[in-house]
């Protein structure tokens, strides 16, 4: 091999130099102090806030669950009013899903992944901070509503027409806009995680050496990118119907409530696996450590995780078995739904095989892992039962299902997360949690959980539907419900013990030893207590368990014998490596502390929050402000012209500082983001064709449609502007300034004209979006496209200005590459829109 992996320096650098290096690194990576602390963007701070806030939302939703259990303790109870009960279960489910389960996954990943990858930080620290602030602002807004009796009360599934026409007040708007805001933030974090896992691995960590946690995280994050857009698209339709009366779900004007169910469950089912997979990822890290052997069946686990992710997108209809679908659909989706048990089974048998292969050391994390396994397997088995359509006809929407999915989610997520808490706590806090409290908590939670949720299977089969605030006496439900209530309080006591263990003062407790569990994975090289720099020097990896297999690894890392042992320029840096082989490609400069992410989150949050109250002037102002903040953020914080072309990162490796196109992390981030964006667009197009399958006459023959002329003109203009943007990049590369300015300038003009032409179609034929779902859909597709073109115009103007200011040059053009990439997607959007609105009516008639 020509490019054999370099070995660490044979000689340690002089002690003096080591100290100076460490001092420089420490200063560069130090968290800001005082009130400036809240401008921190490093994963060691943001990750911690993220985890803490998600856990607080978990406790809040847990308290709501206890209130519900008190109400249901006996028949005819009046502890909560019907209205308040309905708000309570809606907020409980929504908060657990959107403010705990998804954020805790991203929070743990943001915190741990850099350590597992031996990276200083993930590639977009400010994006992660932005995601956190959006989550906090949106979460407070959403959960605060219940204290004003204004919380959403349509269930976490928000089925119209209940939520579109029969629930006045702002509850449903809070849900739709608040969660859309948080979902955007969740996608931002997912982009960060995907690009981090692909591009920021340590040299030598080839694709077959990636820690299983990182594999699972990648699968989960990719699922977010494809699963959240259907919900965002659906929420947009529902909010537009509520605010502007466009009848997407109103059957009297051609709409259909079932469209929402398809879009919702197209998100909602993958969501379950987005929660489950990253939690199981913690198990995949814990099991080998305590079994003292590498995981058996690594490839099986990776393929099973990917397979689960794929399959989970083909199961959504099993939430709709009772909507009157034809038998053939029921059969197909029953088969697909049961099939997902196979990759899940593979993962669990790999864990059992690993335990069996080693000598298991007993510990609190292992206790929670085994308890979680016992609980989850039962939930999985009842999952197979409800996957079979005939059984689901009875079990659907009853407490049987409530019992089933709490076994799956608590066994598959809460138990592993608490196992992970006990396992990884020393990495974050430098101290161990109490073995005694952890064991007590386990038995309280395990026993309480089973007393709560086991009886629900039976109460459901005895005829107790979900979401009822009371039930009749003497119907065989009284004792079961009382048991569930008692169990819920035992479960809560266990969670309280965990909470106490985490927050109890530990000043007197001695610092945990380094790698306290004797684990083999890279995150455990961390010093105790941890330093903000993440890792002292970035090692070359050639094992899945480098701490077990690579001799002197700790010493070599600590003495700075690997890459980037220093911060000579006083800048935050990490390595970018290739996707498959993890060959070093670039020395990436990372941004430091800033209030811009917080400002961007506040202003963008203002848009959604003011929008909820229909304060359109303030909402528009916030949107303009947030666009401004984001532009400042981009201008000052990204794609700065490097002061040097290359840098010696150590071990004789010299890497470029700058990268553009697919070699750069920014290009990948835009690519992943646009995948999410185009998925949302495809969901809207799906809506169009959904109505074609529902109605005999769609597009309605009575409607003139947008015509052919104007959409064709628009398509021609927008295609031309896309080609001009491509040419502009080429001419910029050849440093032909005049041609570059000309091409982009003309492109902008074409885009303005093209947008006008696109709007002229439905405008000129007088389509009224409130009269029928067809004109509403045409206007929606047109509006979506024009919005994207408008954002593209802003990007092009940005590039023109950057070039005029000399920041964008022939050799430093990553902005332009990213804008071209955006335009590829926007061209696809514009072409599809015109083909659908102008072309399809010709074919359909």
């Amino acid at each position, binding site marked *: 091999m020509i490019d054999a992996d370099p070995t660490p320096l044979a000689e340690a650098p002089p002690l003096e130099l080591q100290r100076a290096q460490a001092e420089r690194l420490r200063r560069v990576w130090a968290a800001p102090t005082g009130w400036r602390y809240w401008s921190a963007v490093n994963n060691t701070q943001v990750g911690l806030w993220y985890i803490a806030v998600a856990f607080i939302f978990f406790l809040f939703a847990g308290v709501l669950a206890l209130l519900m259990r008190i109400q249901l303790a006996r028949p005819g109870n009046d502890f909560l009013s019907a209205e308040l009960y309905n708000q309570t279960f809606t907020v409980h489910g929504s908060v657990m899903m959107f403010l705990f389960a998804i954020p805790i996954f991203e929070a743990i990943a943001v915190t741990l992944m850099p350590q597992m990858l031996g990276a200083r930080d993930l590639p977009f620290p400010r994006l992660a901070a932005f995601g956190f602030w959006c989550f906090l602002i949106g979460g407070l807004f959403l959960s605060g509503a219940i204290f004003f009796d204004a919380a959403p009360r349509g269930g976490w599934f928000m089925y119209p027409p209940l939520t579109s026409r029969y629930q006045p007040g702002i509850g449903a708007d809070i849900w739709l806009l608040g969660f859309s805001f948080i979902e955007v933030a969740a996608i931002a974090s997912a982009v960060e995680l995907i690009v981090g896992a692909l591009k920021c691995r340590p040299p030598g960590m080839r694709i077959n050496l990636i820690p299983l946690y990182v594999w699972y995280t990648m699968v989960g994050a990719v699922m977010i990118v494809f699963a959240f857009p259907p919900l965002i698209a659906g929420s947009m339709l529902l909010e537009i119907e509520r605010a502007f009366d466009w009848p997407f779900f109103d059957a009297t004007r051609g709409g259909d409530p079932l469209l929402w169910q398809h879009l919702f469950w197209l998100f909602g089912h993958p969501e379950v696996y987005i929660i489950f997979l990253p939690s199981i990822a913690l198990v995949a890290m814990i099991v080998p450590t305590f079994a003292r052997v590498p995981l058996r069946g690594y490839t099986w686990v990776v393929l099973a995780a990917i397979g689960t992710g794929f399959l989970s997108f083909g199961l959504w209809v099993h939430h709709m078995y009772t909507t009157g679908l034809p038998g053939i659909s029921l059969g197909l989706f029953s088969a697909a739904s049961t099939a997902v048990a196979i990759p899940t089974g593979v993962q669990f048998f790999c864990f059992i095989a690993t335990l069996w292969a080693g000598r298991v050391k007993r510990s609190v994390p292992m206790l929670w892992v085994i308890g979680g396994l016992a609980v989850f397997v039962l939930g999985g088995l009842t999952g197979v039962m409800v996957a079979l359509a*005939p059984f689901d006809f009875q079990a659907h929407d009853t407490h049987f299902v409530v019992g089933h999915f709490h076994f799956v989610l608590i066994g598959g997520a809460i138990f592993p997360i608490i196992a992970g808490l006990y396992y990884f706590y020393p990495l974050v806090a430098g101290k161990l949690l109490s073995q005694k409290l952890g064991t007590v908590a386990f038995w309280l939670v395990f026993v309480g959980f089973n007393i709560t949720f086991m009886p629900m299977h039976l109460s459901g089969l005895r005829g107790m539907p979900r979401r009822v605030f009371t039930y009749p006496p003497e119907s065989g439900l009284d004792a079961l419900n009382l048991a569930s209530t008692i169990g819920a309080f035992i479960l809560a006591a266990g969670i309280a013990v965990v909470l106490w263990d985490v927050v109890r003062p530990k000043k007197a407790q001695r610092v945990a030893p380094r790698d306290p569990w004797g684990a083999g994975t890279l995150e455990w090289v961390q010093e105790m207590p941890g330093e903000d720099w993440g890792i002292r020097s970035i090692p070359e990896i050639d094992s899945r368990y480098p701490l077990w297999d690579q001799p002197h690894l700790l010493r070599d890392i600590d003495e700075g014998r690997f890459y980037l042992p220093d911060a000579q320029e006083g800048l935050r840096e990490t390595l970018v490596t290739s996707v498959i082989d993890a060959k070093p490609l670039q020395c990436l400069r990372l941004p430091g502390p800033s209030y811009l992410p917080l400002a961007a989150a506040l202003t963008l949050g203002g848009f959604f929050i003011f929008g909820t109250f229909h304060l359109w002037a303030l909402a528009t102002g916030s949107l303009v402000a947030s666009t401004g903040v984001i532009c400042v953020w981009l201008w000052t914080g990204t794609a700065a012209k490097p002061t040097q072309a290359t840098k010696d990162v150590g071990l004789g490796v010299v890497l470029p500082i700058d990268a553009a196109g697919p070699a750069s992390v920014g290009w990948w981030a835009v690519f992943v983001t646009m995948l999410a964006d185009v998925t949302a667009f495809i969901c809207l197009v799906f809506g169009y064709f959904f109505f074609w399958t529902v109605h005999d006459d769609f597009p309605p023959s009575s409607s003139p449609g947008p015509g052919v002329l104007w959409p064709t003109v628009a398509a021609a203009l927008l295609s031309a502007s896309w080609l001009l943007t491509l040419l502009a990049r080429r001419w910029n590369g050849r440093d032909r300034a005049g041609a570059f300015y000309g091409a982009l300038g003309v492109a902008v003009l074409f885009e303005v004209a093209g947008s006008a032409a696109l709007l002229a179609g439905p405008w000129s034929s007088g389509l009224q979006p409130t009269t029928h779902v067809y004109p509403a859909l045409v206007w929606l597709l047109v509006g979506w496209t024009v919005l994207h073109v408008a954002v593209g115009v802003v990007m092009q103007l940005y590039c023109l200005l950057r070039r005029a200011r000399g920041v964008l040059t022939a050799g430093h053009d990553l902005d332009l590459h990213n804008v071209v990439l955006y335009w590829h997607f926007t061209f696809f959007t514009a072409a599809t829109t015109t083909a659908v609105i102008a072309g399809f009516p010709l074919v359909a008639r």
Partner: protein
Amino acid sequence: MSTKSAQPHLLTCARFALAFAVLPLGKGSTLEPAGLAADRVATLFWVLTIGATVIWLVVVGLALYAVSASRRPQSPRGSSLLIVGGGVIFPTVVLAGLLVWSLSMLPGLLAPAPAGSLEVRVTGYQWWWRVEYLGAEGATIELANELHLPVGEPVELQLESHDVIHSFWVPALGGKMDMIPGRRTRLRLEPTQVGVYRGVCAEYCGTSHALMSLVVVVEERQAWERWLAAQAQPATSPGEALFLEQGCGACHTIRGTAADGALGPDLTHVGSRASVGAGVIEADVPGLEQWLAKTAHLKPGVLMPSFGMLPPPELTALAQYLAGLR
């Protein structure tokens, strides 16, 4: 003196009015099936439950054995066998078998009742059921929140919704089916045992979703025919003047009188029903009095206004009139 003695009574009334009431109307368990579909699914349930218990014991047993100290570590070959055997082959075989068996039930469960069977249209409202028996020549017999079926005969239900999505579910008779605005769904029931069964709305439909019960009375063919004939008659009770005077007829129909409203339940034979308010309270004189006086307390969010402002004698007279509509 009389006011003093009335106080405790008022207090109990107030307490009662605050608490939520749902009547235990008939049997409502899927595990005591009284219909063909429910019977098949119950069998499926027991087989699945026993199978799941065995599998759970084996898997958890394996996991506990794997963490126990007193055993030899498994060889890599053993691991592969365990992963492939337990994770791939075993579930594939079991799931394939389950699918074939359970899906073979589907055609029978989904098939419509044969032509000429009894047809009933049930329409979901927030939060009650309109029930219409469809006669041969378009004539219908209408009532609310109560369904009488002849035993041993298939019945074809046409399910619709007036407002939001509801779901029609009589656990003891068969699976549920959603009622979706703008669509018509259908469900076939075939009761096998005489009795009274509880139906509920299974899809969350707003404030009083929990208070949307349905009584299903399954009886012998002759008894059922007598009941249907009685239901077809116009109302016979005197004392309708008060009912009309209070404007009740704007929302309710009582056939044979001037009351012909369509917004609320048909009350022609309300006195013959097990409950009013879709399972909230008995349809006798005291129950109807409560219902009229405290409608919104008994059923939060209900559209019907309370008539608590009426003088007690008038309330009683109205309740007596309604209870007499048998």
